[in-house]
């Protein structure tokens, strides 16, 4: 444990940022110390992204001061922030797929020849050296970025940060799309960065990661800083209490429901590259959890069942009848619906009103001979908005103006309105606040109690173990285990199956 140094590398104080109608940040402060990792913790909408954007020069604060090495600085543009040694590694890796690794590392500050043109050879050499330093020597500087895995892209982003000798590194949910092994590698890398004296801001929703890697924490709630301190002096409950402003004991509202007859049977289901030999059954009233590492093929399997991608062979039976599903439209007709993980891209249509989002797949029922009937549409939307306890100013409001949790409720409402037989939820609570999370969990329990068959993909162990009747574990596109969820099931068993570690190795 490094001793806390008295002088922070960067200090933000009194930062206020207002958007029309929203106060995103209110007089918040933050200090980052060299050689230390500070975790920034808060629910979605607490102001973390706004703070990151302020620190990287994308937003200009309305008030407040930023000091680097005790000197006040201005960050009028992302480039200015970059020049001052602030660099960010973002949720979605923001790099350039079509450009080479070396170009990605040096874009904006490429080494120049004496004729002021780009020095390609020098650039490749330096890129190779930087990658070597962070243990990423396996990445060739000439490779196109699009050919790399997400973890390797992160490494390129880190190399980019080192290329300007950035002293302040912001990591905004860097582990969100990484596998278990890749996360371990990333943590090793963070240790290297710490040793090099970098001041690191680490943003994550996952407490185990925070406790593993961070030295300090700062908690935001509703755009204000509500607590900070040393990680070793606190515990998870304390941080959660700060985050939500009340202490919550997260009880999963799983009810014991009588499992009904078989509704969905998948046999010998294969895809050329994404999954193979998938066999499972799903019953009425059952919640079937799908656990695995990110990239294990769970979403891909579900998207094939929903008709987005084409399987190469295998059979799907719905209530005993062979079902051929070639498009999402056919899946909906047969009673299978899918709540996607990528809510903003695939779930809600942000520029359409809530009621039109909800009625979209049910238009055939709310219309007459293909002609719209707004009255019926509103009635349908009202009914399901109420069932899901949607929070909105009006049903005519664009779905994009809602919070993430309420957008998720709109997507679920949209599908329930079609009266499905099977509902597939892909990471249903990812990136939504704790309040909405509980609402979604409660509702899932209710759906199962009403006889709906539920498939839930989740990478969070408490969620998968708290909600599922049975758990299918996938690894590398195949089913690694199917486990009954009872008292004897241990989390370790799931993790081992997902990671492919045998009993004897444990």
């Amino acid at each position, binding site marked *: 444990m490094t001793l806390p140094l008295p002088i922070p590398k960067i200090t933000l104080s009194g930062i206020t940022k207002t958007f*029309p109608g929203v106060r995103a940040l209110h007089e918040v402060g933050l200090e980052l110390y060299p050689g230390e990792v500070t975790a920034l913790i808060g629910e979605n909408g607490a102001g973390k992204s706004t703070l990151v954007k302020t620190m990287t020069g994308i937003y200009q604060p309305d008030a407040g001061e930023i000091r680097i090495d005790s000197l006040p600085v201005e960050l009028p543009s992302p480039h200015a922030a970059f020049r001052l040694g602030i660099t960010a590694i973002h949720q979605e890796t923001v790099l350039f797929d079509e450009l080479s690794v070396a170009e990605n590392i040096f874009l904006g500050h490429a080494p120049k020849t004496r004729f002021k043109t780009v020095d390609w050879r020098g650039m490749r050499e330096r890129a190779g050296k930087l990658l070597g330093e962070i243990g990423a020597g396996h990445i060739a500087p000439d490779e196109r970025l699009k050919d790399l895995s997400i973890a390797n892209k992160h490494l390129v982003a880190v190399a980019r940060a080192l290329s300007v000798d950035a002293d302040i590194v912001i990591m905004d949910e860097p582990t969100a799309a990484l596998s278990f092994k890749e996360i371990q590698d990333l943590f090793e890398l963070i240790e290297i960065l710490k040793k090099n004296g970098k001041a690191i801001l680490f943003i994550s929703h996952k407490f185990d990661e925070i406790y593993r890697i961070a030295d300090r924490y700062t908690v935001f709630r509703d755009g204000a800083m509500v607590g900070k301190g040393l990680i070793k002096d606190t515990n998870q409950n304390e941080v959660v209490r700060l985050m939500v402003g009340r202490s919550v004991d997260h009880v999963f509202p799983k009810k014991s429901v009588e499992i009904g007859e078989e509704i969905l049977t998948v046999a010998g289901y294969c895809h050329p590259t994404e999954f193979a030999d998938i066999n499972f059954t799903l019953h009425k009233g059952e919640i079937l959890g799908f656990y695995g590492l990110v990239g294990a093929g769970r979403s891909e399997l579900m998207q094939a069942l*929903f008709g*987005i991608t084409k399987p190469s062979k295998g059979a799907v039976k719905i209530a005993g009848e062979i079902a051929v599903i070639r*498009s*999402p*439209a056919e*899946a*909906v007709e047969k009673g299978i619906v*899918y709540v*996607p993980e990528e809510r903003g*891209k*695939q*779930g*809600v*249509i*942000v*520029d*359409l009103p809530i*009621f*039109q989002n909800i009625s*979209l*797949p049910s*238009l*055939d029922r709310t*219309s007459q001979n*293909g*002609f*719209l009937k707004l009255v019926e549409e*509103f009635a349908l939307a*009202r009914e399901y*908005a*109420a*069932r899901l*306890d*949607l*929070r*909105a*100013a*009006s*049903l*005519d*409001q664009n779905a994009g103006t809602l919070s993430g949790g309420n957008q998720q409720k709109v997507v679920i409402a*949209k599908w329930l309105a079609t009266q499905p037989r099977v509902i597939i939820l892909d990471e249903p609570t990812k990136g939504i606040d704790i309040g909405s999370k509980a609402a979604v969990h*409660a509702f899932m329990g*209710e759906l199962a*109690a*009403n006889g709906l068959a539920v498939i839930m993909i989740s990478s969070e162990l408490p969620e998968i173990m708290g909600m599922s009747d049975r758990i299918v574990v996938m690894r590398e596109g195949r089913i690694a285990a199917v486990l009954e969820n009872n008292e004897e099931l241990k989390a370790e068993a799931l993790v081992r199956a997902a990671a492919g570690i045998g009993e004897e190795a444990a």
Partner: protein
Amino acid sequence: MTDTTHEARHIPDRIDTPLRAAIFSWPVLLLVVAIALFVLNSFASPYFLSPWSLSDATFNFTEKAIIALAMALLIISGEIDLSVASIIALASTMMGLALQLGVGTPGLVAIGIVTGLFCGVFNGFLVTRLGLPSIVVTIGTMSFFRGISFIVLGDQAFKGYPASFDFFGQGYVWWVVSFEFVLFLVCAVIYYVLLHRTNFGRHVFVIGNNPMAARFSGVRVERVKFFLFCLTGLMSGIAAVLLTSRLASTRPSIALGWELEVVTMVVLGGVSILGGSGSIQGVVLAAFIMGLVTFGLGLLNVPGIVMSIFIGTLLIFVIALPIVFRMLRERRS
């Protein structure tokens, strides 16, 4: 639902009343412009208000406007068809060929429309089946369709269309009301209903807003888009019949450059070039505005090429204006 005792939160259907929303809408702004132009024109030229000259004025824009109706739907869905003018050329050429073979008026009309439809099917196939970007595909078919006309005709022209064929582009239904104009109004009503009052129209908007989410919501995106390309081809075929009849001849250079005028009309009508929003009312009003400007300046002996400056400026102006206002408002607050 046993233990959920919470009272369902009441969410009102709307906050903005439809009337209030309608008053501040794009079509209303266009209507004001159109009325202003009308008044201005009637002051500028004594001939303007005569029924016959007003009727003449409609010929300037009805054929383009007929295509613009379908183009509006296509652009709202996030696609574009730049080959419409070339479809006119090809359809007209096919009618001319049929004429040489002695086909009568009903046959000529059918051939024109079917050729248009076929071209639309071709575009639709390339875009939706092969998944190609429509702007590039239709730049290609634009050259290709008109190129076929050039191969067939070279520097020649088809002439000698039968007298009964004149009706479509030159005939009057009642007094000064031309067949073309009536057809346009009927089509406008049909397209209004199709876009704003049917499930299909809703799907068009949804696809334009977010094609991926539309597909994930069970909308048959490719099918809708394919149908829209067919419709645009069909309307271009109808326009070809009208134009060929009006000119009583076919040259390969027929309707040259119309594609950009049609797109201008659609965008002026408030359809977002990025897809997802727009209305038929707006497009119809934009058609009238372009017709009024062209005709009014024509009465003042302003040459056509100068009118194009006006149209171009109008296009940029009407799109820039709301943006500038919004920027000023944001700066103030």
